[in-house]
């Protein structure tokens, strides 16, 4: 069974979703939870069976799909994708378990299960086209979730979300086809296998163009400034579950793809574009933090904060050092947990008051102390307090980039300041002060169902902040192989110098030279 565990992980939810059409409406929630739980346990088993000492791909599966065009059904995971898969199954489970939506629950759960398939698929795919298939397919359930269960502007938001990402992905697709064509020219065979592509060393000017093509697809997904404007709408209109999944998992596809595609395929271009991208990352960090500070709607604050955090992830990714890339992968998980939790929390208050405007609240801390506590913990995690999950990622990402540029890291480091500003002021507006709005006076504190969703997230946020090793170690091993691959493939002098050579025993020397 372990031989096909990835296929099972991908298609089990989809199959269950199909069968879900038969299940009656009132039992649907239980069914959904059961399926998501089984899936989650399967993903945990995957972790158990995963050998953290092996840096390469594990649980590989391969079957030709379109042989004459080199497309094959190729799956496999390494430390980078393993945890994002677990995160996906985890959040699907939590999302369904803490679902408070009452309209058309059946459709919603079926959609969520399909979405789960695409999420797992994206992170398990090792063939570019299979990756692309899941990548695009993930838009559809999300489109439906936002469009059918969203707020007043839901149609605008969902269409914008879909078209924006769709456009970007198509450019990426052209890039993929180019890549395959280069492979064809080099070897005389078509192949879309990423692992095969890793072996190609492309001329630098080709790398630049291809990098740009991939970049557009990924950057819109992440989303990076200035392609980010779909995100606030999507989050603002999406139902809680939609925002949670979107923030926790779907955004990670973009950053994951950077590590899976852009870095190892185009090491020289990655170095070439390192600084422009770092500048964009800084804009994301500071500018969106400012925008978040100006928001009146608490969900929008969290939405913009996501962009800001994604900026740090991008920065860590383009640090091109083991520390930075590991940190960014870890931050993906951290940000997933934290922003997912924050969106769940916003959903809690939205369910009670049907508004998300901070001016409507105030003094919630005295009415809903448990809620305020959990929100506080998650806010502090979001701000990146040590011993919470985000700190590890942010610290490592910034640390990693410091090797490349001091000034940029210093500027990007303001993330810890501006992040605190908008988060604390939002918290203050909503939770502190006297209770001014009579409607807030008798609000109920978080109930058991909601606790069910939130407590595990709190536990994870702190557990991985205190003891990140079980996750960080496999990530590190896989990242090391990526970095080494990049170093080996790099052609330009600058790229060779910037990307550390790990096989070099006197690693410290190269570090000194970089200064």
């Amino acid at each position, binding site marked *: 069974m372990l031989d096909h565990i990835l296929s099972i992980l991908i298609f089990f939810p989809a199959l269950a979703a199909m069968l879900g059409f038969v299940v009656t409406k009132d039992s649907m929630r239980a069914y959904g939870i059961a399926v998501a739980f089984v899936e989650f346990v399967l993903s945990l088993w995957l972790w158990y069976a995963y050998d953290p000492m092996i840096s390469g791909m594990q649980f590989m599966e391969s079957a030709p799909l379109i042989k004459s065009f080199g497309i094959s059904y190729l799956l496999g995971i390494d430390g980078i994708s393993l945890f994002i898969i677990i995160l996906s199954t985890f959040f699907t489970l939590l999302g369904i378990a803490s679902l408070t939506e009452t309209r058309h629950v059946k459709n919603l759960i079926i959609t969520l299960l399909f979405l789960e398939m695409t999420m797992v698929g994206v992170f398990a795919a090792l063939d570019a086209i299979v990756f692309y298939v899941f990548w695009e397919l993930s838009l559809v359930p999300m489109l439906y979730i936002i469009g059918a269960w969203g707020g007043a502007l839901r149609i605008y938001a969902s269409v*914008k979300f879909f*078209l924006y990402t769709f456009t970007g992905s198509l450019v990426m697709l052209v890039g993929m086809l180019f890549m395959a064509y280069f492979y064809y020219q080099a070897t005389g065979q078509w192949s879309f296998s990423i692992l095969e592509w890793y072996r190609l060393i492309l001329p630098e000017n080709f790398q630049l163009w291809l990098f740009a093509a991939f970049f557009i697809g990924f950057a819109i997904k992440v989303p990076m400034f*200035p392609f*980010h*404007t*779909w995100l606030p709408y999507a989050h603002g209109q999406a139902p809680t579950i939609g925002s949670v999944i979107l923030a926790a998992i779907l955004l990670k596809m973009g950053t994951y793809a950077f590590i899976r595609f852009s870095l190892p395929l185009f090491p020289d271009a990655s170095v070439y574009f390192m600084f422009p991208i770092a500048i964009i990352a800084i804009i994301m960090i500071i500018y969106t933090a*400012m*925008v978040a*500070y*100006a*928001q009146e709607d608490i969900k929008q604050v969290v939405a913009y904060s996501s962009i800001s955090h994604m900026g740090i992830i991008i920065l860590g990714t383009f640090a091109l*050092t*083991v*520390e930075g890339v*590991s*940190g960014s992968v870890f931050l993906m998980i951290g940000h997933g947990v934290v922003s997912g939790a924050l969106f769940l929390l916003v959903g809690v208050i939205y369910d009670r008051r049907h508004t998300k405007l901070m001016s409507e609240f105030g*003094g919630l*801390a*005295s009415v809903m*102390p448990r809620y305020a506590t959990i929100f506080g913990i998650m806010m*502090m995690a979001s701000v990146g*307090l*040590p*011993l919470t999950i985000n700190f*590890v990622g942010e*610290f*490592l990402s*910034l*640390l*990693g980039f*410091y090797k490349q540029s*001091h000034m940029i*890291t*210093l500027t990007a*480091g*303001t993330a*810890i*300041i501006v992040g*605190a*500003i908008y988060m*604390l*002021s939002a918290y*203050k507006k909503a*939770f*502190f*002060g*006297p209770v001014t709005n009579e409607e807030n006076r008798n609000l109920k*504190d978080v109930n058991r169902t909601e606790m069910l969703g939130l407590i595990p997230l709190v536990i994870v946020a702190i557990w991985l902040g205190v*003891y*990140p*090793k079980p996750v*960080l*170690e496999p*990530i*590190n091993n896989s*990242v090391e192989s990526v970095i080494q691959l990049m170093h080996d493939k790099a052609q330009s002098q600058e790229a060779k110098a910037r990307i550390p050579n790990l096989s070099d025993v006197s*690693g*410290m020397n190269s*570090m000194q030279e970089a*200064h």
Partner: protein
Amino acid sequence: MELYLYIALFAPLVGSLFSALFGASAKTSLTGYVASGLLFTSFISSVLLLNYVLGGHTVHVEMMTWMATGNLYIPFGFVVDQVSVVMMMVVTIVSTVVHVYSIGYMDHDKGFNRFFSWLSAFVFSMMVLVMSDNFAGLFIGWEGVGLCSWGLIGFWYHKESATWAANEAFIMNRIADLGMLIGIFMLYWNVGSLQYDVVFAEIGNLPVVITTWIGIFLFIGAMGKSAQFPLHTWLADAMEGPTPVSALIHAATMVTAGVYLVVRANPIYDLIPNVGIFIASLGAFVALFAASMALVNRDMKRIIAYSTLSQLGYMFVAAGLGAYWVALFHLMAHAFFKALLFLGAGNVMHAMHDELDPFKMGGLRKVMKGTFVMMTLASVALAGIYPFAGFFSKDLILEVGFVEHHYVIYTVLLLTAGLTAFYSFRLVALIFHGEERYKLFGIHPHEAYKFMLVAMSPLLVLAIIAGSFKMTYFQLVMNLLPATQYHVHNQTIFWIMTIGTQLFVIGAILFAYKKYSNWNSVPDGTSKMEKSFGYKLLWNQYYIPKFYEEVFSRPYLELSKVAWKEIDLKIVDATVDMIANAIYKTGENTRDIQNGNLSTMLRWMVFGLVVLLALAVAFTVGYNAVGA
């Protein structure tokens, strides 16, 4: 010994978690007792560890890995050595006292359980800070105390001013933390490790420029936590928190973390005396600057807060001049008498129903004898009168300045010592002497619970006798810190200096008494002095908070709004929509090509053909021309 280490470290955490369990429920005294008991346990363990360390050993444990990736390896490692054990003692003593005191002080507060949870959590963070064996662990504690400080300043979260002050403190500390983070990054990429022992062993091999930058960035971190100019404004505002918090966090422990960092990183600062001079100069400046603001302030707690700030300046002078052990010594002594002062102020506040203006008090010594005695003695200690603790530590710093030939610094510190004595006794005089002005406001003061006074008594004792530990202490820390003795070798000058200083200080005290002990009215802002420029300048804290508000806070908010409403919505997003709309509009505007009229359709076909023919002819002509 490791067991004691873990007990000392984790007992507060257990207390905190235990209290947190009851966080949302009604008050249970149990939380206070348990938390205090665990703190006492922690204190006992620290004492045992001190005893062990006095025997010449140190304890170093590595609990588990925290972060490990690439070459980076950060464990949860803890070290109890000569420096950290001193800090541990200070922290556990003061916090035990404050915990017990708080049982009484917070007696009627709804958030009693929550308070103890935060307070113990703070102690845990502080213990992590001082006991960590690497910079990252230090940073954990560093941020942890920041968090707890946020929670405790904003403890009464229904008050706007409290939450504002909490956020201000947190954010300002974050600014400094960024500096510290950068310092840590530099250390890692230059040394390859963040462990103290490795760093200090390797630091000498680095180019001085890098060491200098490392020193500067670490010190920026220290500036935030220890509220040095220009990041000082949060400390005075932090007085919004409950008074025990001010005593523990904003006087005795957290704010001294910056000093501790410099002391801890002495091998780095030893290599960069220029930075040291800067630190010392800044410290001297802050000492004077803060003392001047304390002169006119009318908020009891703020006066003490400025005094704290001023004393921190002293410590940085010592640390900056390389007299690390002196700095640490003053840190310790200061912790005792300043915490005592704050707790006394807490009693007064309780008695006065949270009134803070000393001008509205007066004559309280009759009803609050115990508090009066304690606060007076603490003030004497603060003023540095022989044989109280302050004399041994503070005058030593003056001597350091003198011995190191920094006469300007020396003069400034001397002047500050006078100011310190003045404002301390201005406060004491206004509160405890003179007419009972509080009667105007219908307040019936009463002395605090007896056990609170008992709880404070260890601090009183220490404030009096701490100076006598000086030699023991010196013996202890010279294992780790540069063991320079600062003595003015010329006996005459030494005596002149010592006695002169004492006389100067006593003079200042007498002046304060003379001026304020018979005060009989509440100033209403009409007196000549209150209208003078100097007074206004000091009263408004040199307009610095206002300056920050006008130059940073408000523009930042305005800019944020512009960023959102003008840039994000009107430019970035509008561009995207514009592209989409342009495509759509093109369709709208050109769909009439298909007007349903057959003639038009046929004409389009012929038009297409004609265009093709025209292009064909043009191409042929061009082709032939090129061909020919």
